[in-house]
């Protein structure tokens, strides 16, 4: 692996950048691996990296149907934070956030992890109480959270509509200063490059089409590039979880829903933090390149389509302008969508399945980008040791039948009500 540095670029300036090598190889699949990860998104690649790095399991393949990072990793609004409501979620995402904090250096790849703050706005006294409750819960659990007054919020983001007569007036906010954004593509590429350097085979254009079973145990996969054997197989395919699990006869508490996001044309800096709201379903940030990145709620109905739906976008635009009136004349440049793996309590599933040798990492809904390093670490733990890491233990698949669901949004089993 050629190390990345400013010096390297300087050298490249003189040799026409001819000496940069491939960021990752393009190996042919081997007949068998110790561990196969299905899905070359951020989570799958991170899992492979930590398997090799932390557990010394290097005979690992990541099988990606298309191009790595082309799933939700490549189409999310890149918000990273750990300020969730429920303690299990806080523990999980704080575990991840701590990993983010050293990740660019660890991977020798600039992930542009920008701790610009993740701000929730409150629009009424009761919103503020809810935010305080969330903040109190976080602080008691060792996660940073600060309640902001209206004045604070105004200073942080002067373009917010601070009018008292606004439809959703801004009473204050709750900020996680360590929250922020990261460059989505870089996360996939950075993990891929680092995993590849440790010997992991990253195999693109390799779709898993079947799971081979022997005596109730998963022993390998069928792919568009042939059959491949493995001791352990980890599913890590986000919106496609149900389809791959079905290859081993499993039915999951997951439904696939379409979620859209869009960017404006780039402009000079205007929003310096990540803006979310307690009452309105839209979130706003500005990328380093200058586009305003906007997102809203997923569609209500299940879909594997990555085409868009105009009405949701129109709604998000209206709300965004409501919060930041100066966005009005910015132009939407591109709008896309991803297929999210909506679990039936809003929390992910990490760990074993009823099929021996087959593991599942999925159900991240619309919030798994922030979990990428943590999810990879914890999943690698389960795949290497066969038992869950304590932080991941509550996120088991049995919780739906046992009743120990982790209902962050308190909205029950139907994903569309979340």
């Amino acid at each position, binding site marked *: 692996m050629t190390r990345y540095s*400013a010096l390297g670029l300087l050298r490249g300036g003189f040799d026409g950048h001819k000496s940069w090598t491939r960021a990752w190889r393009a190996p042919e699949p081997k007949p068998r691996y110790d561990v196969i990860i299905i899905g070359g998104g951020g989570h799958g690649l991170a899992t492979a990296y930590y398997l090799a790095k932390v557990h010394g399991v290097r005979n690992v393949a990541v099988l990606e149907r298309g191009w790595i990072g082309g799933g939700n990793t490549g189409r999310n609004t890149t918000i990273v934070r750990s300020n969730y409501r429920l303690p299990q979620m806080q523990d999980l995402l704080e575990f991840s956030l701590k990993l983010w904090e050293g990740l660019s250096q660890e991977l020798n790849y600039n992930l542009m992890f920008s701790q610009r703050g993740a701000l929730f706005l409150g629009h009424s006294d009761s919103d503020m109480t809810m935010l305080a409750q969330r903040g109190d819960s976080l602080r*008691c659990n060792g996660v940073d959270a600060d309640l902001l007054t209206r004045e604070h919020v105004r200073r942080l983001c002067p373009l917010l509509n601070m009018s008292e007569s606004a439809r959703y007036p801004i009473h204050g906010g709750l900020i996680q200063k360590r929250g922020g954004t990261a460059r989505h593509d870089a996360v996939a590429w950075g993990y891929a490059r680092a995993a590849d350097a440790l010997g992991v085979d990253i195999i693109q254009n390799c779709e898993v089409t079947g799971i081979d079973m022997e005596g109730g145990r998963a022993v390998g996969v069928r792919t568009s590039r042939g059959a491949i054997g493995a001791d352990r197989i980890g599913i890590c395919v986000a919106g496609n979880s149900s389809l791959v699990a079905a290859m081993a006869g499993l039915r999951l508490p997951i439904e696939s829903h379409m979620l859209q996001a869009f960017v404006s044309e780039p402009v000079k800096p*205007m929003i310096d933090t990540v803006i979310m709201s307690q009452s309105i379903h839209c979130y706003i940030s500005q990328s380093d390149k200058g586009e305003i990145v906007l997102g809203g709620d997923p569609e209500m109905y299940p879909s594997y389509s990555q085409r868009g739906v105009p009405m949701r976008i129109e709604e998000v635009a*209206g709300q965004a302008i409501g919060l930041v009136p100066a966005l009005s004349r910015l132009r939407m440049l591109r709008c896309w969508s991803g297929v999210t793996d909506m679990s039936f309590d809003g929390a992910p599933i990490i760990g074993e399945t009823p099929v021996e040798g087959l593991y599942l990492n999925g159900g991240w809904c619309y919030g798994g980008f922030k979990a990428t390093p943590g999810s990879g670490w914890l999943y690698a733990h389960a795949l290497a040791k066969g038992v869950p890491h304590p932080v991941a233990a509550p996120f088991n698949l049995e919780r739906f039948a046992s009743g120990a669901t982790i209902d962050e949004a308190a909205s029950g089993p139907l994903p569309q009500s979340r």
Partner: protein
Amino acid sequence: MSGPSRAAQGGLVDRARTIKFSFDGQVYEGHPGDTLASALLANGVSLMGRSFKYHRPRGVLAAGVEEPNALVGAGTGGRYEPNTRASDLFLYDGLVAVSQNRWPSLAFDVGALNSLIARFIPAGFYYKTFIGPPWLWKLYEHVIRRAAGLGAAPTEPEVDAFEHRAAFCDVLVAGAGPAGLAAALAAARGGARVILAEQDARLGGSLLGDEALIDGLPALDWIARTEAQLAQLGARVLKRTTAMGYYDHNQLTLIERRVEAGQAPGASGLAQRLWRVRAGRVILAQGAIERPILFSNNDQPGVILAGAAKVYARRYGVLPGRRVVVATNNDEAYAAALALADAGCEIVAILDSRSAAGSAIVAAARARFAVHLDADLISAKGAKQVTGAEAVVAGKPLSLEADLIAASGGFTPVVHLHMQAGGTLDWNETTGAFTPAIARQGQVSVGACAGREGLSEVLADGWLAGELAAAAAPSTASQSPSPKGGGIRTEGATAIAPPSGEGDQAQPDGGGQPRAQAKYDGPTNTLAHWTPAPGVNLKTAFVDPQNDVTAADLDLAWREGYRSVEHLKRYTTLGMATDQGKTSNLIGLARLAQAEGRPVPEVGLTTFRPPYTPTTLAALAGEATGQHMAPLRRTPLYTIHAAHNPPWQPVGYWQRPRAYPRAGETLAQAGLREARSVRTAVGMIDVSTLGKFEIAGPDAAALIERVCATPVAKLAVGRGRYTVMLREDGMVVDDGTVWRLGEQRYLLTSSTGGGDRMVGHLSYVRKILEPGYKVAVASVQERWGAVAVAGPLARAALAGLDLEPPAHMGLVRGQIGGLAVLVLAASYSGERAFEIYAPSHDLPRIWAVLQDAVTAHGGGLYGLEALELLRIEKGHIETGAEIDGRHTPGDLGLTKALRAKGGFVGAPALARPALSLPDRQRLVGLEAEDGGAIPEGAMLLSARGRKPEGHVTSAGRRVTAKGDIALGLLSAGPERVGETLLASSPTRGRTVRVSVVAPIFYDPEGARYRD
């Protein structure tokens, strides 16, 4: 280029009138019909912008929406629109435009230093450097963010109006060039309801820059006649309207610009309109976009697309240069050369990369200019402005002097909408063009966007498609085909006889298919050719000029393994700029295909996504923004409350008064005063927002017993009782009351939020779970306005109104002030209380009568603050606080209220083991040990550990006695009565010692309201 360059005559601008506008502070003049770009060119201004990364000087490349370079900020204040394409901004009086991404000025830009270090900052350089801890990145980022971005950020709120419209048609035609006009006319003639959308301010498309006769008329006259005919046939013709997105089931979004960027609309205030169109059939007639050529410094001001140069000369009467070198791989650029020459330019040479060219138009050009075959452009000379060109002709160098290079690398059919609609493409290796193949929503592409060339063929194509669409579309509209997995080949619809046989006469009356008589009416004979000639410096051969992506960048990305077309795009940012690669994507793709040694279709295209051209958020939002981003629901008493100017509490879309403070009173003081008056005398409150349902029929009780977890069947007529509703997972989601109005008639109430939620839920239970039930269900939430009168004097207050108030949990019908009411005796406050229901329109009058009675008994109004204090003290749980969607009836102390037999929604799931674990968080009361308000939402910590064991769900104080109290959810709560805990709120810097008590602080026996 130097000096003004308006041609002596010609063009479609209104030379009789002048318009003043400013660019970077300098005032210029132009004419109506000009774009900013044409007017600037006419004024001799060719430097119009700076590139994103290297801040290279840029002029205008195109004459339409595909322009990557000439971006300006248009307008001021709330109308300021950054990144506006100068070539797509029609001039208006007073236009203020500024250049972008330069400091201190466009001509002298410090940022251009970046181009000196360009060799060190190739594609993706930022991934390789600035690698450090997050705090360090924050410092770098600060600088990088300021260098990035294009136009200055807007800072002011909107001043104009935007709206959404629904429209339905049998046939929607996108694009009004010859193909689109012919299609729309044929469809309208066929009796279809037609919408024709054209993004330009004029209809005609390429005809506006061409010389042709159609049906014997000059093109412009034919356009005008067609427009008139369309109007006559009732077609809706929308100009300056872009079809921006093609969605499922033939829904398209159109954006109509009523005014130009930054321009003030007239009295109506309407700036843009979004049309939500549902079409039976869609005809796409978007035309084709010309491609540039790769050579060194191909981004210099003075390098322009050949077709654009023609448009500037013909349509705008502007000479984009004086001495022109034309570089091409097709015949179409010869038409540009001829047009430019006719307008007064000198054609220095035509460099044709093909080895042979022999069509009529080539011959005509050869007769007038130096035409070189086998000729490749190597570089543009000059700085900030082209001064010449270096070429290789049949292997020999050739140096030319020129101030304009008009280049044409072939044509890219605009397949955006076709692709958004899920279509597929075919590849033409010779012309280097993707054309529509399979259509999934029955859409048909016609004209240049289908790869058709030559006016006759294009007209015929459009006409036939229009005829077929009208015949296929159902006459009643709003009926569109479902997208089909298989799809149909568009050729099926458009494979047509080639135009004009001898006997095929034009029909001058315009009754049939339009016929063209053009001087040169044939194929473009494009010979695609992608490799830059040897000698071209790949580091300055720009593929995507806006984002400064060069051929060398593409090569680097490939070397580093970013070889999927999607990786290449993202690593280099090819095609990700504001033009979305309209001119550049295919060139980049072809380069990748070459590197991979694979054919172009195999490396694939990136995804076409809406919008076709960038669309203001304001237009997307329409009227639903600002105050209207969500509706405000008003109770029947809203204006009465508003007269008190109370602090409001949003509850969903509703607004409810929190209190009615007197002068000098804080909200808390007002709440306490109001609560005390309820405890000591009588108060009244608007409770109209509560959910209410009337359920009638033989199976009414059975239906309610499915929905509610408490027994209902034995309720006597005229009586009511408390109930709870569970979600299917066993969690409590709401509580309310059930009243038996008659033998087979019930009233069910819920929380305010339940009013909406229960509509669907009741309907589900009724229609899906129990379709056989004989029962009618109606939401009567808004039929009944409601007022609660509560307090020890409540009965007395009502008794004065000729009303015999019912006993606790009883109901009676009566009259107040001569108006019929329903009176229910239910207590939420803990005092004797009555809820008075009346048709919503009668409520204001009843309120007035009640207010007199209540005041006469020493009471007054109360709001939600007082209600909170009262219900917390009484230990009544509330939706949104204790009922938070994560707790079972057992958690909330409601087990005894449930029907043991089950059979209600939520019952089966309650059996799950984790739902009866002893350490679940359960309802408790909390009392502050040392005084001091208990922070609502605070965490409950015990001496045992640091982790929260529960939280405060609602907090208040005793109403008449002293003491701060709260309700909370606490792990194993009821078993811990007597324990001392900390209620800790680190975010508010407050911690209070609390003792755990039973969750009721006032009149546990209910003596205050029992009869």
